[in-house]
C-alpha cells in the first residue's frame, strides 16, 4: 500500500509563491471586509429570539392529557418565524411556546397563526394570555461581553508583541479582525439567525485564528533567524511552504468535522457549524495573507543591525 499512511502522498516540499499573490489577496480581503461591514449595517444581522425577544404563551390540553411537544414544535417551526422555543411544563401537562414576532406583522395575527397551527397539530388546547419576553442578552451582559472580548484581543496583542515583535502582534490582530468581520459577513449573506450560539461560534473562530497565526509566526521567526541573508519575501514563502502539510491536515480535519456537524446536526447546529467552518477557512487564509504581509510591509529586525530586512514595496501599499 504505497498510499498509506496518506501523509506520504502529500508533496514533500512545495515551492509555491504565496507572496506573489499577496496583492490580489489584499484586494480580495479589503473588498470582502468592506462588503461585510456594510452588510452588518444594512441589511443587518438577522437577530434571533435570544437578542430580540418575542412573545410567549402557555397552552394546556384539557382533561389533564399529556401534550405532544414534538408535534407542537414542528407545527410552529413550519411557520417561518425563525427560532422557536417549546418547553414542556410540569411533566408535559402544559407547554410554553416562545416565538418571534416579525416586525412587519401585528402581534395578534402572529399569535393567531401560531394558535391555528398548534390546534391543527394537537387538537383543542386552552391558551393563556400572551406576554412579551425580553432578550436573553441584557444590556449589562452585552457590555461586559464586548469589554471581555476587547480586553482579550488587547492582551493577545500584547502577548504576541512580547513573545515576538510588535509587527507580529499587529499582524495577528489584523488577521483576527479580518476573520471575525468576514464571518459576520457570511452570517448576513446567508441570513443565518444571530443567536447566543453564534456568539460562541465567533469566539471559537477567534481562538482558531490566533492559534493558526501563532503557528505560522513561530516558524517564520525561526526561519528569520536561520536565513539571515534571505530576502524577507522569500523567507515568508519558505515558511508557508514548510508548514503547508500541517496547515492542510489541521484545517482539513476541522472543516470535515464541522461539515459533519452541519449536515447531521439538525437546525440547532446548522448555523453554528457553517459560521465556524467559514471562520476556520478564513483563519487559515488570514495567517498567510493578512498576518504575514503586514510583517512584509513593516519589515522586521533580524539578528545584527547590518542585515535588517528592508520592508518591501508591494507596489500598492506603502510602509505604514
Amino acid at each position: 500500500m504505497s498510499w498509506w499512511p496518506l501523509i506520504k502522498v502529500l508533496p514533500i516540499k512545495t515551492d509555491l509563491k504565496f507572496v506573489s499573490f499577496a496583492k490580489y489577496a489584499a484586494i480580495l480581503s479589503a473588498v470582502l471586509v468592506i462588503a461585510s461591514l456594510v452588510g452588518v449595517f444594512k441589511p443587518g444581522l438577522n437577530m434571533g429570539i435570544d437578542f430580540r425577544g418575542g412573545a410567549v404563551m402557555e397552552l394546556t390540553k384539557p382533561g389533564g392529557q399529556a401534550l405532544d411537544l414534538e408535534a407542537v414544535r414542528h407545527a410552529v417551526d413550519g411557520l417561518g418565524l425563525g427560532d422557536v422555543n417549546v418547553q414542556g411544563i410540569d411533566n408535559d401537562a402544559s407547554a410554553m411556546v416562545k416565538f418571534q414576532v416579525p416586525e412587519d406583522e401585528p402581534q395578534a395575527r402572529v399569535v393567531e397563526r401560531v394558535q391555528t397551527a398548534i390546534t391543527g397539530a394537537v387538537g383543542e388546547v386552552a391558551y393563556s394570555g400572551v406576554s412579551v419576553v425580553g432578550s436573553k442578552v441584557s444590556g449589562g451582559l452585552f457590555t461586559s461581553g464586548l469589554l471581555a472580548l476587547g480586553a482579550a484581543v488587547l492582551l493577545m496583542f500584547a502577548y504576541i508583541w512580547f513573545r515576538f515583535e510588535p509587527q507580529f502582534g499587529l499582524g495577528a490582530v489584523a488577521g483576527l479582525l479580518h476573520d471575525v468581520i468576514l464571518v459576520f459577513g457570511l452570517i448576513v449573506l446567508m441570513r443565518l439567525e444571530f443567536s447566543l450560539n453564534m456568539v460562541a461560534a465567533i469566539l471559537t473562530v477567534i481562538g482558531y485564528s490566533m492559534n493558526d497565526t501563532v503557528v505560522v509566526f513561530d516558524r517564520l521567526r525561526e526561519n528569520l533567524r536561520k536565513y539571515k541573508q534571505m530576502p524577507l519575501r522569500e523567507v515568508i514563502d519558505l515558511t508557508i511552504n514548510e508548514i503547508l502539510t500541517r496547515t492542510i491536515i489541521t484545517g482539513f480535519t476541522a472543516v470535515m468535522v464541522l461539515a459533519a456537524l452541519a449536515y447531521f446536526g439538525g437546525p440547532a447546529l446548522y448555523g453554528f457549524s457553517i459560521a465556524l467552518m467559514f471562520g476556520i477557512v478564513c483563519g487559515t487564509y488570514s495567517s498567510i495573507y493578512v498576518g504575514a504581509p503586514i510583517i512584509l510591509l513593516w519589515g522586521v529586525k533580524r539578528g545584527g543591525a547590518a542585515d535588517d530586512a528592508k520592508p518591501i514595496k508591494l507596489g500598492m501599499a506603502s510602509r505604514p
Partner: protein
Amino acid sequence: MIHLSRWKVVLLVLSLLFGLLFSYPNALTADQKAALPGWLPKSGLNLGLDLQGGSYLLLEVDVPAMREKRLGNLGEDARTVLAEARVGVLSIAKDPSGVVVTLADPSQMDLALQSMRGLIGANTSGVVDRSVQRQGTDRIRYVFTEQAMASMASDAVTQSIEVVRRRIDSLGTREPSITRQGADRIVVQAPGESDPAQLERVIGQTAQLTFQMVDVENSVQEAMAGAIPPDSELIEGAPDSGQAFYLVKRRVLVSGENLTKAEVTSDQNNQTAIGFRFDGAGARRFGEATAANIGRPFAIILDGKVISAPRINSAITGGSGIIEGSFTIEQASEMVNLLNGGALPAPLNVIERRTVTAELGADAVQAGKVSTMIGFAIIVVFMFLAYGFLFGGISVVGLLLNGLLIVAAMSMTGATLTLPGIAGLILTFAVAVDANVLIYERMRDEARAGRSVIASLDAGFNKAMGTIVDANLTTLVAALIMFIFGAGPVRGFAWTLTIGVFTSMLSAVLVAQVGLAWWLKIAKPKKLPIAE
C-alpha cells in the same frame, strides 16, 4: 526528550486516574451515586437548558414596595437637610410622586429651598431624577420627575436582571436564562442540576445593606410601646445580634451602594466575619460619621435586620472594616456573594415555581449526539489514514485521554455543557490533533534532513514544543480574560476553552512522548514510518 523519564509516565498515569475518578459519576444512576462512599466525587456533567430543561421561577418585581420606599427616602433626606440648616418643619406629607414639606416659619423659605436644592444631583446613571418646587408661601414639593416616575418600574426590572445574573454567576457557570417577561416580571430558568431552593434563596434576598446610628437618647421599650421618635425607627435584630429590637436613627450614614468589595475574613477571635471596603464617597461619609460619634454604637442593617451594633472606638477613616456576627462560613460566603452582586432595587416575589423540559426537541438533541459522534469518528479515521496505525493511533489515544480529562474537569468544576458547547469540544479535539500534527511534521522534516530515527523524534518534540506552547498560551490568555471579565455565556465558553487548552496540551504531548518512547524501546526501528 525522547528518553522516557519516569515522571512522565507517572504524570500520565495520574492524569488517567484523575480522569477516571472524576468522570465516572456520569456513568452512574442517581441511586448508585447516593450509595457511593462520601469521599468519592459525585458530581456529573451539568447539561444546559437546551439539552435537559430544569427549574423555572417566575418572579415579580415588587414595584409598589420600591416606590413606597423611595418616596419615604425623599422625606428622610428632606428632614435631615432641613434639620442641619436649622429650618423648622411643621409637617412632611406624602404626595403621589414625592413629599410636600410644610415649613413652620414661611420666612425661612429661601433657606429651605436652598438647602433642599442641594439634595438634587445626578443619580447613579447620571440622570437628574428629582426636583424641588415651591408651593405657596410655606410649602415645598420635593418629588421625582415625571420621567423618573414613569421609568422607575422598568429601570428596576432591568437592574434586577443584572443583579440576579451576577448572583447566579457567582454560584458557578450554570448558564441560566434570565429574561424579562411583560412589564414587571422576570423569568429565571436554570438547568436541571441546580438546586431550586438555593436559587430562590440567592435571588430572594434584596441584600440592602445600610449603616445607621443607634438612637441612644430614647429607649427601645418606650418605642416598642408605640412612642417612636419621628427621626428613628424600630428594627428587628438578627438572631444572635444581642437584642430582639433596636431603635436606630432613620438617617442612612452609608449604604451598600458605596461598597466596592466584600470578602469572608475572620475577626481577632478567629470568628468568621465579613470584610468590606467602601468607595471614596462612602469612605469619607463613614469617616465623618464615625469621627462625630465616638463612643456611640451604630447598627449594621441587612435587609431590615440589625446584624450587629458595634460601638465606635475611633474614627474609621480608611474606608474598610469588618462586620462581626455569628456566621458560619457558608452563611458568610453567601452574604459576601450577595453584597458583591449588588442590592436588588426592589424585593422579588416568586409567583410560580415549575419544572420545564429542554429547550430543544428530542430529535434535535438526537441529531446533535449523532453528528458529534460522526465528527469524532471522522477525526479518528482521518488520523489513522494520514499517519498510519502507530502515529495515528497515538493521536487517537491522546484524544481519548483528552476527552476523559475534559469530562472529568467539567464534572469536577460543575461547568455546564450545551449543545453548541459539545460541538465546540469536537473542534477542540480537531485543534488538539494539531499538536500531534506539528510534532509529526517536525519529525518528518528532521528525517528528511537525514537524521536517525531517535534524533528525528527528539528534535521533532523539541522544536514543536515551542510552537505548541506559544499557540496554546495565546488562547489561554484570551480565555482567562474572557472568564474574568465576561458574564453569563461568555464566561461559560471561556471556562470550557480553558479546560480544553490544558487537557489538549497534556494529553496530546504526553501520550505521544510516552507512546513513541515505548515504541523505540520495543521495536528498535531503523526508519520512521511516517517519513518517505
